């Protein structure tokens, strides 16, 4: 009995010790302040002057991410400038890498505890708006001092009906660009990159003889075929209205004949032709672009982030001078805009509904959102990276940039027409399934009809 009593007492004491240990509050500070130091502090007039206190922001522009990434560099720079201009506000930053950011923000949303200001992914807009997690910013956007210069087309992923839930952030870059070696294609008999897949197939016979891949592509991550291929190719068959109807749930379906035709063409190109490298489903875009850089491929399909990498890697080489850009070729049976490429802003600066309880804090949050996406940001990324943001800046002087940068800027923003990036919209539940099916389909393991059917079922069940 004595032994039992002692056992119970011992166990209780241990639990109590544990609890006391947990309760101690000798903690290190939990607030981080922006540590960017070498930033010129702009003479920023902000409307946040009336607020003194804490403001939390969560984003994924890490120090590493910002190296060579114009959007991230601009975002961090603007954040530092804004904080320097608002010394009474303690900006608490939570910075995570992109993948972890998505996990974390989803956890916060599920717990109803979003940070004051954060980056909203387009595909979460409708769900989080319905749950009352994100603030209606329609009036704030429309009455912004920069409203006249906003590129309103970028707002679509962050709207539910006519209500706007965020300021599109970072930079708008293409997700589907063909980077090609004009010298190699000239040898194959093409002065410019072919505008039809039929011509690309013809060229692939020549490149096969040379032992060179016609086009390098990497879909090892599963998302690349969606973001960097079908999103644009689908638009060639369906047109923009179809996808708008999908977003608005206005009757379009993944099983519509036009979209299934786009899937069928994708399957044909990857399984029945020798255009692409054989290991396209096993390697990522990062590996595939090396095929191009090393001269083992005559072209590469990827996004603007790949172009930045290829540019910095090839600088000073002959291939640098012969590299050009093109849109995806047009399939023979496609009838819509052959000059389209998917471009947009995948994230927007959004504000938690909790902030609305404190008007001064809300003003500060909106001021921060406007500053992060306003003319200062756009000027910074245009002058330093030849990139565009939500706010248009007039007369971008590209003369300081080399020919490569000027060509790519014009290709991205002037010479081509924009279509939507599929996975900026709808929901991750649809795209997770779709990407896996698409990968299998490109190996010939599933029919386009089945891919469409599964996607439609997921769409109806989750969106």
């Amino acid at each position, binding site marked *: 009995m004595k032994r039992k009593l002692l056992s119970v007492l011992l166990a209780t004491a241990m639990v109590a010790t*544990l609890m006391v240990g947990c309760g101690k509050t000798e903690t*290190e500070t939990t*607030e981080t302040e922006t540590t960017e130091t070498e930033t010129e502090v702009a003479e920023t007039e902000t409307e946040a002057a009336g607020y003194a206190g804490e403001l939390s922001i969560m984003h994924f522009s890490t120090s590493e991410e910002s190296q060579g990434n114009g959007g991230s560099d601009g975002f961090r720079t603007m954040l530092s400038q804004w904080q320097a201009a608002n010394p009474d506000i303690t900006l608490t930053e939570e910075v995570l890498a992109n993948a972890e950011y998505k996990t974390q923000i989803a956890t916060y949303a599920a717990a109803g505890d979003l940070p004051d200001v954060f980056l909203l992914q387009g595909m979460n807009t409708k769900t989080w708006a319905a749950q009352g997690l994100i603030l209606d910013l329609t009036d704030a956007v429309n009455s912004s001092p920069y409203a006249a210069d906003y590129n309103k087309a970028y707002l679509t992923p962050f709207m539910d009906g006519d209500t706007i839930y965020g300021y599109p952030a970072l930079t708008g870059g293409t997700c589907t660009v063909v980077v090609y070696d004009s010298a190699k294609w000239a040898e194959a008999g093409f002065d410019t990159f072919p505008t039809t897949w039929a011509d690309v197939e013809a060229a692939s016979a020549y490149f096969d003889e040379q032992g060179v891949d016609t086009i390098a592509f990497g879909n090892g991550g599963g998302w690349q075929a969606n973001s960097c291929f079908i999103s644009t190719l689908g638009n060639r068959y369906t047109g923009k209205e179809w996808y708008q109807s999908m977003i608005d749930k206005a009757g379009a379906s993944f099983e519509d004949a036009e979209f299934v035709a786009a899937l069928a063409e994708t399957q044909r190109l990857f399984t029945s032709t020798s255009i692409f490298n054989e290991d396209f489903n096993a390697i990522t875009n990062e590996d595939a672009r090396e095929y191009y850089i090393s001269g083992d491929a005559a072209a590469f399909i990827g996004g603007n982030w790949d172009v930045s990498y290829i540019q910095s890697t090839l600088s000073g080489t002959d291939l640098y001078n012969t590299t050009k850009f093109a849109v995806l070729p047009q399939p023979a049976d496609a009838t819509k805009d052959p000059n389209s490429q998917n471009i947009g802003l995948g994230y927007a600066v959004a504000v938690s509904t909790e902030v609305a309880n404190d008007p001064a804090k809300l003003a500060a949050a909106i001021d921060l959102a406007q500053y992060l996406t306003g003319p200062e940001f756009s000027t910074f990324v245009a002058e330093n990276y030849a990139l565009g943001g939500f706010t248009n800046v007039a007369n971008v002087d590209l003369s300081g940039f080399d020919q490569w940068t000027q060509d790519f800027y014009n290709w991205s923003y002037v010479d081509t027409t924009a279509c939507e990036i599929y996975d900026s919209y709808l929901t991750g539940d649809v795209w997770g399934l779709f990407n896996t099916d698409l990968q299998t389909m490109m190996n010939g393991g599933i029919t386009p009809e089945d891919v469409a059917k599964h996607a439609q079922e997921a769409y109806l069940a989750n969106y």
Partner: protein
Amino acid sequence: MAGKSIKTNSKFANGILGFFMNAMLILFSLSCIFPLIWMFYSSLKTKREFYADVTGLPENPTFQNFIDLLSNPNNNLLSAMLNSVRTTFLSVVLIVICGYVLGYILSRINFKGNRVIYIMLLMGMLIPVHALLVPVYIVYKDLNLSNQWFTLIIPYVAFGLPIAVFLVEGYIKAIPIELEEAAAIDGSSFSKTLFSIILPVSRPILVTIAIIQTFACWNEFSFALILIKDSALQTVPPALTMFKGQFSSDFPKTMAALLITMSPIVVLYFTFSKQIIKGMVAGAVKG
């Protein structure tokens, strides 16, 4: 003559067998060691060189990745290591102590609810951690327990205890009860028996638990991600993700960071290697 021939044949066969056995073991060893070697020489490459030839040796080895890592204050690698060491040490100590006492009590003392407590503890091993992330986050937020230096110790101890209790309970059951009876006849108190008689006998299983939990706590990612907001309080696993961008990853830098951050664990391993191997064997036999 025939006997000599049989002996020679048998020697030859043994030699062949020995050669193949050794070759197989060398291959297994290489498969374990190569990732470390690859990690080391990849950390001496530039990003471009790495992607151009993933497994090739560096043409111009450089320590630039290490210099960049240690000179960039935004990386927080050193503070992440300190946080990991503190969290892991305290968690493991608490798991071992609590696991030992609870395991002993559940093994040796019959009281009402003994099995219920045991089964409840074991159920902790059956629930996937990811299913608990959101509820745990909400509880921590409401109790103001998140984002503190000790935040991670609580779930690590809670989720480490079931396996510790399970192993200790099984191990102590195999120790003859006569040992404690002899101690009791000699006038040993309960606590003395617990900590002076049985504890030394249980050392192998406690070392096993310590090893398992050290690696589990050091590598734990999910709670470290959702319960800690302040980068100054981050542990190693979330800190390492900072080298992965939205569309590209700097693998050579990640390798360099891995080499730096794994150093405490490597030092620990070489310091206690004999003990660890003994403990693993004991755990395998008894646990």
